[in-house]
């Protein structure tokens, strides 16, 4: 890469594409610390693989009739878990808040999200650390996550849930456990998690009492027993060998399978895991859907897709490809002012700037979201935060409806792959939709 504005007093700077500045910085840091980089946020490198951006919708023309964008009914009601549960989870919209731990997030952040979800008629998910006091107070429907660490596990909280999510892995770092650095293991968090204050908490990668799909069949039954068969059991997978994993999860008795793609977020994790493990969310939804179809359970087992869902367009595309609902995490936090240019000097103190910050792991979040410091947390007002998150959920829902109506659907769940065309060969091959301009599906 060349410096674009050379003049006679300076040489033209050439930057290596192999040893780029951030790579050099990474090596410098390892030379000082002897350990790999840990940070928050998720995949940061530029997306050169097929993503939802490589698809476009085909609204009605002469061959089909669109619905009026602002007037005609377009249902967003979503029902999850009817396979075995006596009480499937009924939501007003197909967007849910994903599991983000109280610990990674502040009490105020958890409270704001719980309130927003309750108001719009969707669910919150607990995260690694158990049910937080914020959710206990403000959430209407919560999905109770059972993770390898079992921090905060409490049968009473489990029985109060609207759904149980048995987490095998997470999109940002499949195959590994969670991480919460010492500055965030405050007295309260330590007490919740039964840990010494200030430890750099590492969660195990494996569940303590099950080690494979053959055990998981029994574990799912245990969770059903514990909840009188009332609520759906989700199995959450970090997208890796997605086709095989989804088939297994469905066959093992999951009511709903959650697939969390590579672009998913995290509060703290080794950077290399976030960048170089797992498959992208677009690829993952296509593999997941194919897996369910191939075992004849598509439609019977619902699919929730997560991992870098940024807006209603991503959600609509995921749904057209086969998702029954999507989880948002990072987008929800951004709605709470993550990376907003407020308290700019505090971003700089962290060595970053607004719109570029991924320093959740430090616990010094300038806007009070991913911190346990009470002073910083005050910067996130619960009511304001709840309203902002609620606005995002509503706006995303309107976006999905707009696209669905343009495609002639009176229900957002009627979106199909055939409503889209691919903008690149790769997307055509991965998704099985025609490449725009050719009317051909490539590579199948």
């Amino acid at each position: 890469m060349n410096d674009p504005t050379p003049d006679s007093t300076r040489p033209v700077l050439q930057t290596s594409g192999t040893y780029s500045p951030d790579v050099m910085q990474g090596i410098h840091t390892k030379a000082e610390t002897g350990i790999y980089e840990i940070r928050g946020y998720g995949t940061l490198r530029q997306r050169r693989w097929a993503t939802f951006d490589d698809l476009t919708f085909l609204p009605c023309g002469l061959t089909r009739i669109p619905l009026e964008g602002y007037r005609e009914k377009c249902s967003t009601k979503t029902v999850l878990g009817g396979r075995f549960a006596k009480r499937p989870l009924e939501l007003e919209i197909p967007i849910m808040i994903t599991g983000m731990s109280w610990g990674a997030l502040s009490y105020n952040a958890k409270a704001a999200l719980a309130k927003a979800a309750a108001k719009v008629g969707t669910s919150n998910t607990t995260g690694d650390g158990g049910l937080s006091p914020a959710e206990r107070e403000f959430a209407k429907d919560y999905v109770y996550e059972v993770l390898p660490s079992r921090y905060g596990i409490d049968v009473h909280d489990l029985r109060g849930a609207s759904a149980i999510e048995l987490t095998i892995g997470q999109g940002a770092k499949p195959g590994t456990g969670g991480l919460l650095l010492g500055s965030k293991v405050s007295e309260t968090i330590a007490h919740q998690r039964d840990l010494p204050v200030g430890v750099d908490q590492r969660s195990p990668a494996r569940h303590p009492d099950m080690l494979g799909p053959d055990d998981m069949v029994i574990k799912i039954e245990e969770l059903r027993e514990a909840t009188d068969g009332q609520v759906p059991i989700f199995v959450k997978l970090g997208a890796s060998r997605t086709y095989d994993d989804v088939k297994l999860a469905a066959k093992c008795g999951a009511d709903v399978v959650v697939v969390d793609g590579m672009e998913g977020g995290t509060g703290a994790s080794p950077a290399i895991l976030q960048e170089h493990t797992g498959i992208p969310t677009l690829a993952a939804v296509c593999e997941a859907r194919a897996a369910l179809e191939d075992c004849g359970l598509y439609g019977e087992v619902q699919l929730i897709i997560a991992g870098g869902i940024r807006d209603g367009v991503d959600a609509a595309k995921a749904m057209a490809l086969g998702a029954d609902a999507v989880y948002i995490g990072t987008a929800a936090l951004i709605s709470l002012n993550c990376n907003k240019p407020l308290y700019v000097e505090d971003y700089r103190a962290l060595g970053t700037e607004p719109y570029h910050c991924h320093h959740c792991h430090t616990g010094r979040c300038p806007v009070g979201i991913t911190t346990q410091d009470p002073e910083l947390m005050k910067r996130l007002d619960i009511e304001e935060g709840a309203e902002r998150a609620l606005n995002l959920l509503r706006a995303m829902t309107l976006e999905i409806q707009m696209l669905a109506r343009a495609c002639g659907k009176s229900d957002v769940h009627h979106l199909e792959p055939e409503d889209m065309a691919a903008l690149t060969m790769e997307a055509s091959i991965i998704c099985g939709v025609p490449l725009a301009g050719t009317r051909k599906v490539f590579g199948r």
Partner: protein
Amino acid sequence: MVEIAAVAIDAGTLSTREVNAFIRSRLQGGAAEICVENPNARHNLAVALLQPGRVRFMGSVGYYCGGLMDGAEILVEGSAGWGLAESMMQGNVVVHGGAGNGAAAAIRGGTVVIHGDAAARLGVSMKGGLVLVGGDCGYMAGFMGQKGTMVVCGNTGAAFADSMYATTCYVGGTIGNLGTDAVVEPLAPEEAEMLDRLLAEHLPPALRAHKPAGREFKKVVAGRKLWNFDKHNWKTWQDAL
């Protein structure tokens, strides 16, 4: 309240759901003890018992017996499968035979007593309470133990007490080998007395007689080198991660 005497049920022909429903309803009704015959090592028996009362299994149980329990008592005359009493909040579980992998996994309180041997990952991620094994235990017992007490009267397998937080372990026999960041510390006199009391309280006299005295136990805790990332402990971290 009138205490209802022991009730019995033959699990042989019933589904697990039916057995558990029976147990729960009788406990709710105030039964002091429920005898379950022919459990046949079935899985998920006595899951999520939230009422006080005792359940006695006249045989072996499968996976997750007593899992997600809060406040009841369970006695297993035979052996138990994986995940015995997993995530228990409070309560008391006694197994006369042995237990499979992950016995007392993630317990937050209560007591788990195994007269026989425990398999791998005994007390993994335990967050409180007491687990006491009369016999030996297997590989990686105490892994990532956070709080609570583990007592193994016999020998341990490899990687004992690996990567622990603040669980305290006591071993009466030989330690197979110590896991990452596991260290042996001197046993205080009060701890020796405590161990004698625990063994007397939880093991039948005939069994207790063959076990070491309290003062013969070794104490194993975390060396705390893994509690915070530190580049000077590279060797420790290399083994741990």
